[in-house]
């Protein structure tokens, strides 16, 4: 039987999320990491932005759904900058200037990402082409195979 006091101590230790190496700080999060802005409109702007920013310490998660301390600090940056009157695009640009396009999930057409946009267009054309060929030729029913 583990005594309750020991248990409580263990549980308090448990509050700290151990990282990959078991190393993690015990500092409280930055003020706006887990705290919403009072103005619902600004908070909505901040939330929308946070959902499109990548958590750099995590894998495939946005900073809006991560418990990593760094994601918390990034949320603090986003919220306090929004509060200071910066626009979401400015904040995104600020982060991209520091971490490159990797930090942003927002699709942007540039010399690297253009195929992401060209391929859907190509697919639309391809689909339209197939539909016209397959379905548009009903007059020649029984004729040559498409």
């Amino acid at each position, binding site marked *: 039987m583990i005594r309750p006091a020991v248990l409580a101590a263990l*549980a308090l230790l448990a509050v700290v999320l151990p990282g990959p190496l078991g190393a993690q700080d015990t500092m409280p999060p930055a003020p706006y990491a887990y705290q*919403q802005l009072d103005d619902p409109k600004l908070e909505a702007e901040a939330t929308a932005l946070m959902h499109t920013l990548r958590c750099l310490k995590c894998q495939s998660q946005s900073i809006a759904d991560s418990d990593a301390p760094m994601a918390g600090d990034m949320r603090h940056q986003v919220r306090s900058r929004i509060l200071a009157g910066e626009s979401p695009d400015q904040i995104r640009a600020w982060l991209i200037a520091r971490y490159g396009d990797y930090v942003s*999930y927002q699709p942007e057409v540039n010399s690297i990402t253009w195929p992401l946009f060209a391929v859907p267009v190509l*697919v639309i054309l391809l689909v339209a082409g197939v539909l016209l060929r397959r379905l548009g030729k009903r007059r020649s029913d029984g004729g040559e195979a498409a």
Partner: protein
Amino acid sequence: MIAEIGLAALWLAAALAVLQMVSGVMALRVPEGEAAPLAIYTRPAAILQAFLAVLSFALLLYAFAITDLSIKLVASNSHSMKPLIYKVTGTWGNHEGSMLLWVGVLAASGGLLAAFEKRLPERTMGATLAVQGFVALGFYAFLLLSSNPFERLPVPADEGTGLNPLLQDIGLAFHPPTLYAGYVGLSVAFSLAMGALLTREVNPSFARVMRPWVLGAWVLLTLGITAGSFWAYYELGWGGWWFWDPVENASLMPWLAATALMHSVSVLAARDALRTWTIMLGVLAFSMSMLGTFLVRSGVLTSVHAFAVDPERGSFILALLGLYIGGAFTIFALRAGAVAEGKRFAAASREGALVFNNLMLSAILAIVLLGTLYPLLTEAFDVRVSVGPPYFNPASAIFAIPMLLVMAVGPLLRWRADRPARIQFEILLIAAVVIGAIALVSFFGSYPLLPLLGLGLAPALAVAAVLPLRGRNLRRVPVATWGMVLAHFGVAVSLFGMACEGAFTEERLAAVAPGGTEQVGDFAVTLEGVAPVAGPNWTAIEARLAVRQDGGKPVILTPQARSFWSPPQATSESALLTKWNGQLYAVIGNRAEDGRWQLRLWWKPFVTCIWYGGILIALGGVLAIAGRLRVDIKRRRAAVRGAGRRADLEALQPLPVPAE
């Protein structure tokens, strides 16, 4: 001894896979009707191999259940203090065990096919089983040469290292085997497609053999994805239910291909059209399964769900992928040109609608595939990019929305050719519901475009789903048709859940002192206290939340922040309060220095519809299988009874037109 028997069974099964392959090929080399001397071994080999592979897996299950720490795999993935259920499910919570499950299911489905499927010509069957044996052989080689699950430790370990705590969850425990069974079910579709292609037997009777396998795999994939999404929702602690993560996409891609295949195989079975396309999708669906396995196992892509990553194993799976899929596409390119075009049809016909939806599903598949693999491509040039929800959502919606609209009217159309004017009432009704719902929602507030469109489409799809039943005697509607109605209705329900979650979710993040109250939606949530609790292999802090709706009676919720000690890792156990119209989602976070606790609260209206919809879709698939099987069994009985009167029957019933 357990480990040795398991290993021996695996080697024997591998040997039988060789026999199955060789004798299947023998069957292929003689003309139909003549007996090949070796070909008689194909079916028994497949059945025995299934038995041995399943036995091997059962032995590993047993080793995990009793925590046999002399086996390396058990020692490095289990722990004697774990609850029994997670000891057992831990069998497939690791690379070797899950690959053994993979081949176990593969062999079992091959065995079932060999034992019960008597409708196909022997040559096609031989080719099919040969392909099945060939695929199984690759995975046996993989297991035996690079990931032996039964490897012994020189000295038994004192204690195991435990299982990833995220996997110690009942939802996730059964999610991988469901998905795997789905993946592997598609291997049968693949083998059948290859068998039919090799023997030039792409015809409706082949499609009827393939259909239950595709349906079955599709049902399992649907359930697996639904369960995985629900797991991510309540276990990751942020209320998200789909992250477009590479591993999630890896399960979605085979589902998209299987959905397309399921519809095209129905067209082939009913109308003898879309022959090449069906073969193509059969190959594609299994390719996506293997690609999924590759992406998850190799770690070439970063993912939240990557649990067992090893580049060496990645190379092995990639080699298998190249062998099977490369081989299949080569045969496809060489042979498909020789498959005669099936029956033709008009644009406004059931087939026309199905072709349209097939193309849309394939387009979505292409988008998901591109978005998932694109970061891999840019990394080859040392540039890292992020492709996430802001790309996938709109890009897939471009194709999903037309698809859903056509899905609404497709089932109302007749086969071969129809006049749209005949169903103008239905079309107008569906259009009216779409426009009405969008207008109604826009009247009450402004919402993002995609959820808004979803809210418009969902009720229309629900109405459209039941329209095919209009004017029919419900008792005489075939079971399979009920299946379709239910599955399409499930799509509407699921879409409704997604759209509501996207449009109406309310979020409250706050630091709360014990005794403090926060408001989210209609709910007042009071933090009554925080206390430590202990489980078998974890400790946690547990918050006691009293939730009052509009000042009513309080309901107690107890979210936990759990800390596992072997291996050391923390998880948040969210607490959910389910109402008829949504879910309250509560998470307890860290304690701030001033003694307040971080609470995360969400009110998510109708979010549960997402998964109820998924279950309805799967249930629709089950009904479709049941309906088809019933018809098949009836037919078989009729065939047996009619054996004596065959001459009469043949006189009455014209023979089906043979495939050119």
